């Protein structure tokens, strides 16, 4: 079946502009995660959605970052007033209900964001 998809695959933006990154999780997966992969910081957790529960935003680096998940499926990560340090690969992952003891996270191909 189809895996996690993300768009765009690459995004170049000017410093100060807003960007939106999209994630389509695997059908039937109730949990959705955003991570960031950057040279200096490695892979970092950003935010997590599970069903209708309030998202866990504890990994968001600043209030310029926000995310939403509409209808329990597609998610959008928004970065306002982008800075050069926001340049990274943004990864989305999804998993089955966390009540299952052997959940695993399936990752998408990522969006490479470059802020000039």
């Amino acid at each position, binding site marked *: 079946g189809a895996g996690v998809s993300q768009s765009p695959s690459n995004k170049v933006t000017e410093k100060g502009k807003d960007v939106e990154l999209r994630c389509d999780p695997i059908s039937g997966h109730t949990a959705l995660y955003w991570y960031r992969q950057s040279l200096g910081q490695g892979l970092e957790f950003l935010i997590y959605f599970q069903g209708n529960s309030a998202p866990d935003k504890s990994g968001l680096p600043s209030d310029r970052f926000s995310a939403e998940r509409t209808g329990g499926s597609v998610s959008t990560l928004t970065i306002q007033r982008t800075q050069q340090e926001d340049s990274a690969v943004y990864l989305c992952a999804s998993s089955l209900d966390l009540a299952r003891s052997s959940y695993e996270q399936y990752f998408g191909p*990522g969006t490479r964001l470059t802020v000039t």
Partner: protein
Amino acid sequence: AQSVSQHNHHVILSEAASLELGCNYSYGGTVNLFWYVQYPGQHLQLLLKYFSGDPLVKGIKGFEAEFIKSKFSFNLRKPSVQWSDTAEYFCAASLGSSYKLIFGSGTRLLVRP
């Protein structure tokens, strides 16, 4: 702070050599442990995972890992590597009841034919 450490940043091996990549975590409670692989130009894929039970876990493509609680370690092994194993390998952990993955810094493996 809770963290996952990978000791080797770059490893170069010849085909048929044995592989062991180190991974340690710093957390005294229950952990779930994972190894992910990222082949060139591809996305992260799960190699294997440990949640409970037998500490020796077997994954895809002949990989295995051993959870040693006393050493806070989860090293990845493969008895004989192939050129196609060239990739970046990430150790990750979720701590206690948390769902967040904490990743190590990754190990780039180059297998020479």
